[in-house]
């Protein structure tokens, strides 16, 4: 599936929820599907710094695609990372770099994008893109 197809799929899944608690319940449940980062990869380098919750994110190159593992000590954050990983996992560096992320706003999570939330989605997306950039330049 392409990045956009996956995003549309997520948007559709969220359509059934109009109550925020239901959305969170879904996100909490979805957190369980996150490919969890190896304990010894929970290094300071893989930690996305912030004051609210901790997020670790790692990427590897598999068959020319990026494979992500991650974790967080807060469950909602973990669920949100899981959604991001679902969108970007096993995509090419080029596709990740040029991706337009529209599902976040569509499912109503954009308030978590505020730049002051250091641990928010923005820094996770930045980290994902910087992995893509690094692997992209490796390939060249």
């Amino acid at each position: 599936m392409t990045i956009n197809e996956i995003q549309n799929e997520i948007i559709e899944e969220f359509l059934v929820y109009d109550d925020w608690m239901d959305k969170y319940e879904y996100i909490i449940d979805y957190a369980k599907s996150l490919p969890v980062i190896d304990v010894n990869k929970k290094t300071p380098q893989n930690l996305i710094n912030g004051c609210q919750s901790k997020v670790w994110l790692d990427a590897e190159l598999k068959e020319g695609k990026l494979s992500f593992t991650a974790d967080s000590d807060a469950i909602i954050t973990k669920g949100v990372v899981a959604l991001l990983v679902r969108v970007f996992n096993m995509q090419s560096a080029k596709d990740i770099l040029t991706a337009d992320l529209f599902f976040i706003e569509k499912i109503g999570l954009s308030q978590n994008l505020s730049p002051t939330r250091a641990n928010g989605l923005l820094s996770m997306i930045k980290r994902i893109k910087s992995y893509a950039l690094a692997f992209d330049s490796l390939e060249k």
Partner: protein
Amino acid sequence: MQKSIEEIRKDFPILNQKIYGKPLVYFDNGATSQKPLCVIDTENEIYKTINSNIHRGVHFLSGEMTNAYEKARQTIQNFINAQLSEEIIFTKGATDSINLVAFSFGEAFVNEGDEIIVTEMEHHANIVPWQMLCLRKKAKLKVLPIDEIGELKINELENLISERTKLLAFAHTSNVLGTINPVKKIIKKAHSKNVKVLVDGSQAILHSSVDVQDLDADFYVFSGHKMYAPTGTGILYGKKEILCQMPPYQGGGDMVDVVSFQETTYAELPFKFEAGTSNFVGSVALARAAEYIKEIGFELITTRENGLLIYATHELKQIKGLKIFGESQKKSSIISFLVDNIHAYDMGLMLDKMGIAVRTGSHCAQPLMQRLGIDGTVRASLAFYNTPEEVDLLVNGVKRIVKLFH
């Protein structure tokens, strides 16, 4: 005649709104309080009528504005019972006040090998400026610990103080634990060893009456925005004899006497410490907030807030796995808690969607979090305009979230 809760809530228009379709429950007063209409109106009115730069203006408006500003100084003087109006310095907030003292007191009195004492429960604003001073002067920062219920281990103070100790800085009320420290007793102990004292009154000034002369504080600081006044306003109270010996903090207009390229002489107190055009409009509104607090009356404020604290504590404690951090008998209406291993951030996000504003995280007190062995807490800080019904909404919200996790 005391105001009813309905009347009080009418004073704060922001409270009467819905967010996410639910009535707003504002329990983040420890971070910043809401503003009553009279304070908002004061600022508006000034900009519509007498706004003009203070001091030295020869024209009518400047005179009017200067009078209002200096009257505001007297209002704050009376509010905290300072002996002299020049002991009241207008600042940008408590952080600004502490930085001023850390710099200027430091320049005058702190030398290599000297010591500053802070406590384990301090806000970063009452730690970092002292750390910076210690780095600058090669002085040493010492820390007075807390005990299991979140009270200062005052008995250890005497051993901690040495002949090199120059100043003790501590919070009147903890912004995380809610503990109200026995300020007068601590100051007496410090003074008996010739140690000057700075009290951070940010979380105390709005909850009960403060008398700086009775406390015998050398410095007492607080922010306007936490006491129903505009943001960017604050107060430094300092004893005149000490302030006089301290050099200016910042240079600029208003703080000078005569300026030439060879030499500058400084203005007298309090202007020596008020460089540049200050937030004079905000400062007048700050004085209005102090008057508002007096109109409401500390008796009503304390009664209401204590009632809310006792009720909320009791109700929250019924929730299995809920732990409250800070269980001093002398507590302000601040409740920090966690439930089992539910992350504070998760709890805060979900409460928000129920219309309940709480604060989550380390509350700018990371050393205290390290002492407690946690990353952060959920903090509900209640004000006299909050209601038991709002407490019920919080308690039910927490219960609903806990259910989701089990």
